[in-house]
């Protein structure tokens, strides 16, 4: 599973970071990016799914590979 944060859509709510700090980082302005180039380590898929489902800006998507 691979995910991506659209930096143009992200407004810094930081929901993804608080739900899944293993998968996301945020800068001082709160803008999020996916760690590890978006590759979700095995076992963390449910957390990635929750981050996607809680983003108020619909900024996180699954990258089709």
């Amino acid at each position: 599973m691979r995910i991506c944060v659209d930096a143009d859509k992200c407004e810094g709510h930081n929901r993804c970071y608080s739900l899944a700090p293993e998968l996301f980082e945020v800068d001082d302005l709160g803008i999020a990016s996916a760690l590890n180039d978006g590759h979700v380590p095995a076992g963390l898929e449910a957390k990635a799914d929750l981050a996607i489902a809680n983003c108020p800006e619909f900024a996180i998507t699954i990258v089709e590979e």
Partner: protein
Amino acid sequence: MSDRDPSDMSPREGCPVHDWATDFDVMDEGYIKDPAPVWEELRDKCPIAHTTRWGGAWLPTKYDDVREMARAAPTLSNRSPGVIPPAPEMRELLIAEVKEFGSELPPISADPPEHKPYKQLILPLFSPKAVEEYRAFTENLANELIDKHIASGKMDAAVDYAQQIPPRVIAYIIGIDPGRADDFTDWTRGIIELGQTDPEARMKYRRLIRDFFQEMIEERRDNPRDDAISKLMAAEINGEKLSDYSVIGVCFLLLVAGIDTTWSSIGSALWHFGTHEDDRKRLYAEPEILPTAVEELLRYYSPVVMARRVLDPIKFGEADMVPGEKVIMNFPAANRDPDVFDRPDEVVLDRERNRHIAFGVGIHRCAGSNLARMEMDVALRVWFNRIGEFEVTDPDAVRWTGGQVRGVRTAPMRIKA
């Protein structure tokens, strides 16, 4: 600023509402107490309602509509974000000031491109990392408040607890004396509660706050401190220092937005637990669900609505909006939309999929959302740790405030260590 024309003053303000679709009143007593039935009716009948009360406004009630409108900057402008527009004399003053100095309360009252640099100045104060630095201060404060009342066996969760925390935390962050918290709270209520419908109060408290921050600037002019005011005074936008007017505007915003909102959220959350035994027992038994519960309480008791001003003609659904009209960003109603949330009118403490928009969406997302969440987390955690049993003594004695910010203003409780 284009605010209400004096001739627009509706003679019906204060009269009962017969048709919420065409004549809603956000200051109606029943609506303030429980707006959800009105939203439910409107979603089916007229999802973007209209009124001529309070200078005239549109009221969306569907999640997708609210999101779309919140993201329609600057056609829907933030230049006058108050739900109830200022009276004519204040409107004149604001127009003159904004012409000379720029946005009144940046970034909340600013549109692109003026908005972004101001938002970027304040966001670092409220990043997840920054707010963790205020956690210990907040925890001490919450514990002290409980120390003060626990032996008496009773405490007003709104007045003695919820109301006391945010003004001290935001004062600490801005760099002003937390010991003056009662003043800051009075001023904020003067603007956000009293000032909505009392033009003289609005003017008076605005003056008090602006004069106070002018004084704070003078104290720091030659002796900068390690605080937000000094940082704002040293900051530059497009290579230029901020004017005193703008520094004061930002500080004014931080103070007012930092107080009423979070106080309302903490108060509503404790009121909920004080009146819902099942949820209270559940949080005692499963403290690990607190972060999810905080999000659910934010959704269900969303305290804040903001307004936009129509600059150019725009159409949403059946609503033909014309320049000068107000649009109420009804985030609380969006968060009860059954098309988005299962069982929207129930508090489900472990609701894991919760894309609520209590802090708004788009460029005007609440800059202090991480701070508010931290304060709610600490306030509830300390309360549940220190207090073994509690309940609201008289559920009918609860008083809600509404308009711009909805929250519990009094919630007397029996408490036991």
